[in-house]
């Protein structure tokens, strides 16, 4: 699998480190039910068949965190953006 890094261009996935779901958000620890929310935030992940937004770190290249939109069935990558300065 090759990931088109927005800075470096297309690179093999062995240059990257995978972190996982890019859409989870740290819950408000003061909110009601925070304990359950944190349990879900830390441990529970969906396992979607199809498009998945995920974090990859380009440690072998420009050392940027990237948000990669990948189809888990085909490994087709439809979008790659920098995590910094984005919506995260």
């Amino acid at each position, binding site marked *: 699998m090759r990931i088109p890094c927005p*800075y*470096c*261009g297309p690179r093999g996935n*062995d*240059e990257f480190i995978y972190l996982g779901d890019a859409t989870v958000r740290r819950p408000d620890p003061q909110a009601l039910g925070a304990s359950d929310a944190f349990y879900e935030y830390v441990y529970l992940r969906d396992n979607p068949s199809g498009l998945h937004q995920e974090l990859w770190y380009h440690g072998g*290249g*420009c050392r940027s965190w990237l948000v990669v939109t990948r189809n888990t069935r085909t490994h087709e990558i439809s979008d790659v953006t920098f995590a910094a300065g984005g919506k995260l």
Partner: protein
Amino acid sequence: MVSFAGLERSTLDGLVRPGHYGRAGATGLLIEERRDLAFASVTAKRGKRFALVNAVNTAFGVALPDGPRRATRGSVTFAGTGPDQWIASADGSEAAGFANKVRARIGPFAAVSDQSDARLVLRLSGPRVCDVLAKGVPVDLHAQAFKPGDIACTVVSYINTQIDMLDDAPTYQLAAPRSMAGSFWSWLTASAAEFGYDVIAP
């Protein structure tokens, strides 16, 4: 502050001697270690990118590249290694205290860190240089894809490596972490042996 002046030694000392190696009667690759280069990493401070571009232009006459390319003026080069990150290098009279000079000129806009002793730097040329690099470099170095002035930070034989194309002879400059120099040398010479290679005295 402790001074290490006069204690400089190459990490290849004791490992490498000038001469011809590999296939007899052929020289496919020329290897020259560069010990005279000073390096400094430059990272733009948050929100200061445009001020930094102006400051580098004023101080060094260099237009900071906004991608993986190098820009040189005189003996000073800035190479783009990542978003808002560059490696500055200098040789000749600019090399002494280079990181401090860079920090003095652009310090308000960037974090500057001396990297001079952190890198093994080799200049590679010769008729088979591309064949040698093809054995370990996962980046397309074809003349249409990688041109003089282009650089790539990538992984060669599991070692993080910066590759700069200096001219279309072609000449490449490879920089690897100093602590990995022995392993890097092992990959390079094993890859070059079938073509024959000359190690040039630094």
